């Protein structure tokens, strides 16, 4: 019930294309769904996050779509650029005592070809 399942494991997209990464969760107590971008040798960096009271959130070229009934959420990267090549992790958390433990998906390695 704690798992967050992410797909695909790897993705190759042409420059200018749309990258789509999907995640699914089981625990309905989760109330915060962030996406992290990680470059080699660096820590995960928060990209965009959504709460379950909205179905979509857009920040620049990055959009999260959230389907509460299906317990799924996805990241769309529009006009994908070579600089977007990185590993992307979805995650989920809830307010658990003091602070919120993140449960991460398995990651998607995105390569954007010029």
């Amino acid at each position, binding site marked *: 019930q704690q798992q967050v399942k992410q797909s695909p494991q790897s993705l190759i997209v042409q420059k200018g294309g749309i990258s789509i990464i999907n995640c699914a969760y089981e625990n309905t107590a989760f109330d*915060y769904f962030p996406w992290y971008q990680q470059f080699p040798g660096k820590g995960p960096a928060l990209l965009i996050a959504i709460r379950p009271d909205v179905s979509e959130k857009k920040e620049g070229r990055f959009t999260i779509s959230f389907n509460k009934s299906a317990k799924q959420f996805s990241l769309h990267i529009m006009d994908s650029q070579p600089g977007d090549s990185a590993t992307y992790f979805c995650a989920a958390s809830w307010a658990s005592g*003091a*602070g919120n433990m*993140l449960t991460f998906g398995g*990651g998607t390695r995105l390569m954007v070809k010029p």
Partner: protein
Amino acid sequence: EPEVTQTPSHQVTQMGQEVILRCVPISNHLYFYWYRQILGQKVEFLVSFYNNEISEKSEIFDDQFSVERPDGSNFTLKIRSTKLEDSAMYFCASIRDYGYTFGSGTRLTVV
């Protein structure tokens, strides 16, 4: 922009030795975390720390692990007797509300 700072960036240690990984969280953050990432795998929660005590820990965080905030700024993770399977990237993170800030990590290699 405020950063979470981790030292060292890379640590090589012999199996059975003790290691201490150090972190300086963002100063006005209230919650502190350690996560680890075995090469090529997902990021896994180890422990959370609030108000000078552990608030949650995972199954990975067994008796070999301990955390401390010795002086109000540093936050350390100690592994008492390292095993080969402890080899991983260890990330420190801190938050105030919901927005995590992760450090760049310490790559621990146990040989």
